[in-house]
């Protein structure tokens, strides 16, 4: 029963919250969509935390996403020992990087008076949840080798069962506790997304590359006056 709630119901609740509250907030309080950067108050420690954190977590998430979307291709990719070691070891290194970077960011928020003044309770909840996520991730990667393999046979089908609205929680129910924690916490982060500063992840400003440098907005029709 508890497995059903955690792995069969909670993911839907989390995604529903993320979409509904995310859209609500975008439509009715767009002003609040911000990265809430604190670099202006403290720059040095942020460099050592934010830069490695973002680049490493993006690559780690990309690997999770590819293995979920294309399990067969991912399995083939890991088929040769050379490629397996390369991917697994880089994954572990990136995971360790995210852990260290998150510790730097947490320490920075706690130790710097200015930065802690702009930190809310939701920010702390988010930081702790992110730390739990990357720490369990690294623990799983190191202690349960090779994650890249069993992910495509367990987690990927579980996620696909969620996508097809026929949740099969057996894939997760038989997993060790730490994997369950990692999975549930992942959806907790999804649920937290619309309520926290995490909303900035949907503001990827890629359109910037294509737009002209200067923007001019006309407040009225340009017609003959």
């Amino acid at each position: 029963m508890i497995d059903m709630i955690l792995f069969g119901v909670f993911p839907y609740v989390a995604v529903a919250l993320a979409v509904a509250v995310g859209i609500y907030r975008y439509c009715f309080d767009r002003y609040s969509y911000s990265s809430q950067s604190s670099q202006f108050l403290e720059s040095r420690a942020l460099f050592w935390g934010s830069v490695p954190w973002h680049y490493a977590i993006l690559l780690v998430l990309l690997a999770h996403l590819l293995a979920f979307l294309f399990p067969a291709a991912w399995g083939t990719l890991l088929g040769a020992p050379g490629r397996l070691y390369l991917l697994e070891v880089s994954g572990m290194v990136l995971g360790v990087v995210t852990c260290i970077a998150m510790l730097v960011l947490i320490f920075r928020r706690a130790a710097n008076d200015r930065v802690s003044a702009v930190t809310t309770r939701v920010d702390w909840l988010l930081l702790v949840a992110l730390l739990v996520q990357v720490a369990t991730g690294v623990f799983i990667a190191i202690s349960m080798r090779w994650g890249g393999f069993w992910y495509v046979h367990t987690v990927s089908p579980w996620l696909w069962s969620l996508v097809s609205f026929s949740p099969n929680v057996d894939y997760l129910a038989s997993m060790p506790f730490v994997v369950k924690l990692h999975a549930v916490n992942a959806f907790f982060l999804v649920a937290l997304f619309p309520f926290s500063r995490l909303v900035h992840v949907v503001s990827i400003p890629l359109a910037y590359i294509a737009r002209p440098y200067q923007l001019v907005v006309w407040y009225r029709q340009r017609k003959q006056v």
Partner: protein
Amino acid sequence: MNIRAQVSSVFHLDKCIGCHTCSIACKNIWTDRKGAEYMWWNNVETKPGTGYPTKWEDQKQYKGGWEKAGSDLQLKMGNKSALLGRIFHNPDLPTMDDYYEPFTFKYQDLTNAPAGDDQPTARPVSMVSGKPMKIEAGPNWDDDLSGSNIYAANDPGVVQLSEEEQQQMFAIEKMVMFYLPRICNHCLNAGCVAGCPSGAIYKRGEDGIVLISQDKCRGWRMCVSACPYKKTYYGWSTGKSEKCILCYPRQEAGEAPGCFHSCVGRIRYLGVLLYDADRIEAVAKLEDKELAAAQREMILDPFDPEVIAAAKKAGIATAVMDAARKSPTYKFVKEWGIALPLHPEFRTLPMLFYVPPLLPILSKEQQGVQKLADDFFTSLEQARLPLKYLAGLFAGGNEEEIKAVYRKLIAVRIQRRNVTVGDLDNAEVDKAREIAGLSTETIEAIFRMTSLTSIKQRIVIPPMLREQAIEAGMDPEAYKQEMGFGSRKAPKRRW
């Protein structure tokens, strides 16, 4: 030709008395709230000095403005992909320490302290963290400290002078300073607009005012670095960048912007300039020394029938054209050529112009009698502030620009002295006029505009034609008694 109208300004530095009334007016209207305490959309700096934020002019440090990359123009921060690559940490962002940490005092301790042998004190506390702090800088910290070896000696414009010129500036008996009031320049080739990854910053087509859409801003803070004048500010509490809005709500109601209206020295002029937007890029790519002149060139004559026809075609309202013909900025910048842009070499084409302060030695004391200098135009070269320094500020290093302005300003003074005191040779007055290349009438016009104008002549606000704006399509009754002033939510963190 793509004609656009721009509300532009001229600050007459000879008239600035450094009273900071403008700064206070602005602060009281716009930035008196949490997260904005340190922001001075309008500030007045003492020059030579390091300014606010400290050494903002030093683009080796801050990487603001544009630079030429081959035949293209790109932000000094780097091209677009380089800029996005640094979105997680912007190495060129000034921190609060480059401005100052806002502070207040624990005044309650003065009355609440228990009785004792010591005098109670009000300790300074940070307005960010609320904790006791040591005040190391504050608003206008180096006010009137020119000549100091901490502030003036570190002025980026002074540092590039030769040893001899620096000596000349700091010789005590010649010590000199002037005030430089600064607001957003509402540039034609704005760095902040170009640097914004979210596309939140834009120029209003009708009047050229540069604004940040608070709903679109995501706090990537690239605008703060990209603006070479450091006139966009990051709101540390709201997570949004803010900047001078040239009091557009006041202008739309026909009122002068707060800093203009409150100016005690009446140094501020505001009016419409017409320019050809197709030429922005070409002008911005010219050599440093050509920029001030080229910017003057691209301003169009509102009396020229061709320009009037083109403006009509571009949809510029006749009422705006009327305002352009009355514009005092057009006279100062184009007709008389005595107002120059600040740091044109940043290549943003700033639309705030300055009449440089007239500081050459005009008279000497001889045996207790004040005597005019023998030759005004050799004394130019012996100006108390080196021309090179002023050229670095207002002309991209082109001393000829400064000399031309000074010759005109000196001619105005000589002619007026002849009128009011009458102790000069007519030949000398004619010579000064000839060298300046001005007619008697023009000189009289410059004099009147400089000293005898009413506010309606100094500040000619074009009609903002709100009745034609898109928002006018929204029913004002729908929000009446519901949202209060406007329909926006309070600028604070809610989630």
